[in-house]
């Protein structure tokens, strides 16, 4: 290897120090909303304390939130949700571990709106299930990233049993909406 090639290799090695590759973004108050629309009843709940970390360079993405942080209109509904359905004593958290997949050639570190794919494992009620959906990232020049996504989850898929008496009050597919604003960690 001649000197020019050696110098070229050396500068390549230095590149990671110059780029933003290892920037990590996080949030402690992301918003997760779920909406169940069923013939007998519509149920909405909001969780405003979702924690998440996102690494744009690798696309690594993680979420974690306490089930007890979901707020309902009716306190009794919230109690039943935790005690009878989600069994929050045994399974206090819901988590997601996966990655964002940028579109071909799209650089997630650049400002602007990006459509992304989301792939990973969603764990609710202690049951892991693969999740594949899409989302939108809005990257602003002040170093903040706003992420949104919508997808559906079925309670039965995560081992949540719904008694026959109330089957018509709870949707078979619950729509979940995620809205989170990241700041650089």
């Amino acid at each position, binding site marked *: 290897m001649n000197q020019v090639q050696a110098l070229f290799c050396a500068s390549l090695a230095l590149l990671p120090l110059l780029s933003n590759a290892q920037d*990590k973004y*996080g949030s*402690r108050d992301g*918003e997760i*909303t*779920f*909406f169940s629309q069923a013939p007998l009843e519509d149920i*909405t*709940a*909001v969780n*405003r*304390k979702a*924690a*998440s*970390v996102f*690494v744009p360079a690798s696309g*690594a993405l*993680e979420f*974690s*939130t*306490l089930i*007890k*942080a979901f*707020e309902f*209109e*009716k*306190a*009794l509904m919230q*109690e039943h949700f*935790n*005690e*009878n359905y989600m*069994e929050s*004593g*045994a399974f*206090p*958290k819901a988590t997601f*571990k996966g990655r964002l997949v940028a579109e071909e050639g799209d650089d997630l570190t650049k400002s602007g709106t990006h459509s992304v794919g989301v792939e990973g494992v969603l764990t609710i009620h202690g049951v892991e299930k693969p999740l594949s959906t899409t989302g939108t990232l809005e990257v602003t020049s002040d170093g903040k990233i706003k992420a949104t996504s*919508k997808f559906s989850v079925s309670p039965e898929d995560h081992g949540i049993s719904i008694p026959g008496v*109330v089957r018509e009050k709870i949707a078979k597919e619950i*729509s979940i*909406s995620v*809205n989170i604003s990241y700041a650089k*960690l």
Partner: protein
Amino acid sequence: MAQDDLLDLLGTDSLTKSYSTASFKSTRVINGHSIENVAHGVLDFRISHRMGFVNEGVSNFFGLDQATIRLGLDYGITDRIMVGIGRSSYQKTLDGLVKYKLLKQCDAGCSMPVTLVLVATTAMTTLSAEQVPWYGEGRQDYLTHRLSYNFQAVLGRKFSDDFSFQLSPGLVHRNLVATEAERNDLLNVGFGGRAKVSKRVAITGEYFYVLPDQGPRDPFHNSLALGVDIETGGHVFQLQFTNSTGMFERAFITETTGDFFNGDIHFGFNISRVFTIYDPKAKARRKAAEQVK
């Protein structure tokens, strides 16, 4: 960096405080108060029934022919403060209560192993003077003679999803008692517990022990109650066997005439139905719901 470590970057305070909920399915264990309050903005309508004594035999259909009743309304002014009123057919008593949750047991993000609730109740007999047995001829019927008070500190813990237990030391004060020898103030300790047998059914037990050496207590016994709680959508049904006839503190703690082990047992039930009057978080929730739809 391994993916598992990512969330650690947010620090341990990334998860919020989470308090214990539903240690008991209702604000009463059976007769006495539990460590649970009614939530902010929620109204709890309670109907409590006690039949006659089971040992009265088949002619009184094992007590079902007679009934004492209490109707009550409890309301959560905040998540920590609850107020309530009620009226019992037992001595035609009106009662009012204030219940304050001082300490909340913590599940995560904080460290408080117990829940401590303070209860203050007042009861007023609305019988006319002639109907009160220990009124003498010509005595002045003062309002204050009809009043009694109860103060309790209820200390409890949800040990697991299936088991909760509480202690409630307290004081019952009766403005007027029947004889000179009887004490106006009676110190007592309550014991209450519940064990869940399924998601919606629990077995409960309660005992109130009036401390000894507080004047003559004949013919009164300590209050013992055993019951089953069944929870459906908006109702909690509490079925119980107890030796106490009255359903407010002065009555069941200090005036229980039944001897449980002699068959002086009332079958009874409490029905609790909650209504959401006011939702403190409605506005914020409406905003979020818009985004989903």
